[in-house]
C-alpha cells in the first residue's frame, strides 16, 4: 500500500466520520432531504467564490458555499411558512433553481477554467493526494486532508459542547424551548455544520457521495439501535467501513472511488435492512406472520369457547366454519395442541383448563383493553410475548 493509497483511505474515512455526525441528526429530525438540497445548491456559492478568488481550495469558497447552504434552508422555510406548498415541494423548488443558476454561471463565465459540474457533483478522490498543502515549502500532506480534518475537529468539538442541547431539541423541541435553549439556533447551527461539511467534502468525494455518507450510515444505524450515542458510533463505523472497503472495490474494478463507496454503503444498508434483528425486513415479516398465526389461534379458541355443541367442534366442521385453508387450520390446531390448550378426542376438539383460562383472559383484555392484564399474560402465554 503506497502512501497515496493510505492518504486516500484516510481522507475517505475522515469524510465519512464528518458526514456521519450531522447525518445522524438530520435523519432523526426527518430532514434528510435537506442535505440533498444543500449539496446541490451550494454550487452558486462555490462559483461566486471561485470568481472572487480564482482558487478552488480557498477558505472563502467554503464560507460562501456554507452561506448558500444556509440560504437554501432559509428559503425553503420561508416558502413553507407561506403555507402555499408543502415542505418537500419547497425543497424540490428551491434547490434546482439555485443549482440552475450555478450551472448557468459556470457556462457563461467559467467555461475555460478548471471548474465543471461533473467535478462538483461527482468529485474525484483519486486526485486528492496530488493537491498538496505546502507550508513554507514543506509538504505536510494533501490539502483536502487538512480541510476535512479541520472541519471534523470543529464538528466533534461542537458535538461535545452541545450534545445535550442537540439531543433535547431533536427529540423534544418544545421542552428544549421551554428550558431556554433556542431550537432555532440549534437548527441553524446544525444546518451550518451540514453545509460546511458538504462543502469541505465535495471536492474530495462529490456532492452525491456526501448525501449518501450522511444518510446511509445513519439510516442503517437507526435500524439497529435506538440509543443516540450508539447510533452515532455505529454510523461512524459504517461510514469508515464502507469508505475503506469501497476504496478497495474501486481499486479492483478500476472505477470511481466515490461510486464504489456509495455502492458499499448501499450493500451495507441492504444487509441491515434485510437482517436487522428487530426492525429488519425479515424480522418484521416473520413477526407479522407470527402475529397472524397467533390471532388465528385466538380466533380458534374463542370459537371453541363459544360453542359447546359437539358438531360445532368437529375438526372438519371447524375448517369450513372459520373458513380457513387446510394447511392454516392444521398449523393452528397443532399449535394449540402443543401448548396444551386443546385436546382432540375422536375428532372433537375441546378446550383444556389452561386453554379456557387463557381464552377468558384474552376476552377480558379485548374488552377492557387494559395494559396491566396483558402484562400478566405475557408471563403465562407465548401469544403476547415480544
Amino acid at each position, binding site marked *: 500500500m503506497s502512501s497515496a493509497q493510505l492518504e486516500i483511505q484516510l481522507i475517505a474515512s475522515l469524510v465519512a466520520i464528518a458526514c456521519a455526525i450531522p447525518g445522524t441528526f438530520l*435523519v432523526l429530525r*426527518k*430532514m*434528510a*432531504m435537506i442535505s*440533498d438540497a444543500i449539496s*446541490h445548491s451550494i454550487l452558486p456559492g462555490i462559483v461566486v467564490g471561485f470568481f472572487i478568488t480564482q482558487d478552488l481550495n480557498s477558505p472563502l469558497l467554503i464560507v460562501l458555499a456554507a452561506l448558500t447552504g444556509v440560504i437554501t434552508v432559509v428559503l425553503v422555510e420561508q*416558502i413553507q411558512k*407561506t403555507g*402555499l*406548498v*408543502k415542505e*418537500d*415541494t419547497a*425543497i*424540490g*423548488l428551491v434547490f*434546482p*433553481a439555485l*443549482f*440552475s*443558476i450555478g*450551472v*448557468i454561471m459556470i*457556462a*457563461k463565465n467559467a*467555461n475555460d477554467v478548471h471548474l465543471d*459540474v*461533473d467535478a462538483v*457533483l*461527482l468529485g474525484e478522490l483519486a486526485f486528492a493526494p496530488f493537491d498538496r498543502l505546502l507550508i513554507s515549502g514543506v509538504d505536510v500532506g494533501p490539502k483536502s486532508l487538512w480541510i476535512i480534518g479541520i472541519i471534523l475537529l470543529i464538528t466533534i468539538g461542537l458535538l461535545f459542547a452541545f450534545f445535550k442541547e442537540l439531543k433535547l431539541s431533536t427529540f423534544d423541541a418544545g421542552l428544549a424551548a421551554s428550558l431556554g435553549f433556542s431550537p432555532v439556533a440549534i437548527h441553524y447551527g446544525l444546518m451550518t455544520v451540514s453545509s460546511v461539511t458538504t462543502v469541505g467534502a465535495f471536492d474530495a468525494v462529490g456532492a*452525491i*457521495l456526501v*448525501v*449518501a455518507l*450522511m*444518510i*446511509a450510515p*445513519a*439510516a442503517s444505524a*437507526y*435500524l439497529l439501535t435506538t440509543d443516540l450515542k450508539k447510533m452515532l458510533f455505529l454510523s461512524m463505523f459504517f461510514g469508515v467501513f464502507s469508505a475503506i472497503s469501497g476504496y478497495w472495490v474501486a481499486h479492483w*474494478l*478500476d*472505477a*470511481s472511488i*466515490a*461510486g*464504489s*463507496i*456509495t*455502492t458499499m*454503503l*448501499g450493500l451495507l*444498508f441492504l444487509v441491515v*435492512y434485510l437482517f436487522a434483528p428487530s*426492525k*429488519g*425486513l425479515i424480522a*418484521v415479516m416473520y413477526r407479522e406472520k407470527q402475529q397472524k398465526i397467533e390471532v388465528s389461534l385466538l380466533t380458534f379458541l374463542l370459537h371453541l369457547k363459544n360453542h359447546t355443541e359437539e358438531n360445532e367442534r368437529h375438526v372438519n366442521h371447524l375448517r369450513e366454519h372459520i373458513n380457513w385453508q387446510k394447511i392454516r387450520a392444521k398449523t393452528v390446531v397443532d399449535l394449540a395442541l402443543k401448548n396444551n390448550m386443546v385436546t382432540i378426542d375422536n375428532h372433537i376438539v375441546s378446550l383444556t383448563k389452561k386453554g379456557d383460562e387463557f381464552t377468558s383472559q384474552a376476552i377480558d383484555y379485548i374488552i377492557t383493553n387494559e395494559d396491566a392484564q396483558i402484562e400478566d399474560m405475557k408471563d403465562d402465554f407465548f401469544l403476547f410475548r415480544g
Partner: protein
Amino acid sequence: MLGSFAVLRKQSLLGDAISHAALPGIAIAFLLTGAKESNTLLLGALVSGLIGTFWIRGIITKTHLKSDTALGLILSLFFGFGMLLLTFIQKQPNANQAGLDKYLFGQAATLVESDVWLMAIVTGLCLIVLLLFWKEFKILLFDKDYANTLGFNTKTIDILITSFIVLAIVLGLQTVGVVLMSAMLLAPAAAARQWTNSLSMMVFLAALFGAFSGVFGTAISAAQNNLSTGPVIVIVASVFVMFSFIFSPNRGLLFRQIRFIKNRRDLELHKTLSFMFNIAKTHENISHPHTIKILNNFQGYTKGTLKKLVDKNYVTLNGNMWSLTQEGFETVSNLYNQQLKKDE
C-alpha cells in the same frame, strides 16, 4: 401534468429520487447491450426507476425510517452505484460509451426526431390513461380509504400512477437531466396549484405552464450561446412559480398582504368609531361636538381614519371639532351588538 399528482400526494421529492435512481438502469442497459440505443437505455432507466420507487415504498412501510430518509437514501445509493458503473464503462474498450453522461445533465439539442416521436407517443398515452382513470385517480388522491371502501383496487391504481410518473421522468431525463428533472415535475404543478382549487384546472394549467417554460427556456438558451437548455428551462419555471406565489388572486402573497392591511385598517376604523360612540353616548345630543384633541390619546386614531369616517358620513368635522352623525351612531351601536351576538 403528472406532477400535479405528485405535488398533491406529498411525494414531490420522489421525482428527484427517481431521476437519480434511473442512472444505474441506463448504465446496466448499456453494459448488457453494448449499444447506445436510446430505447433500450430508457427501458433500463424505467426498470431501475421503478425498483427504486418500490424500494422506497418498502422502506417506508416496513421500517420506522421516514420517507425523507428513504428518498435520500435510495437517491444517493442508486446514483452512486450508477456512477460506479459509468466509470467502469468508461474503462471498457468500447467506442460507443461517449455521451452516456449526457443523461446526467441533459441536452435538448441532442434529441433526434425519433426521440421526439417517442415522447409524443408516451405523452399521448399518459393523456389517455389519465382521462380513462380520471375518477379513480381523483378519489385515490383525496380520500384513499373511501376509494378502498368503494371497491377500487387502490394498489393497482397507485402503481399505475407511480409508473406513469416514473415514465415521464425517465423521458424527461434526456431533456433537462437528472438534477433538474424534479423541478420540471414540481414547478409547473406548484405554480398551477396557486391559481385554482380544482384538480382538472390544475392539471391543465400545470401542462400549460410546463409547456410555456419549455418553449421560453429553449428560446432563451438558443438565443444566447453557451447556455444549456435544462437550467434555463428550470429557471423560467421557477420564475413562473415565484410569480404565482406573489400574484395569484386567492392564495398569493401580495393579495394576502393587501387583505391583511385592509382588515387592520377596518379594525382601527371600528376602534375609533366605538371610542367616539362611547363619548357621544354620555351626551344627550349624539351630535354634540367634541374637540379632536381628546382623540389624540387614543391608539387607533389617525388623521386618515378620521377622514375615512367623514367620507363614510359617520362623522362631521367642524374646524377642530367633530361630532357623530345619526348614521354613524347607529352603525356603531349595531357593530357593538353584532359583536355581542358573536360572543354569545
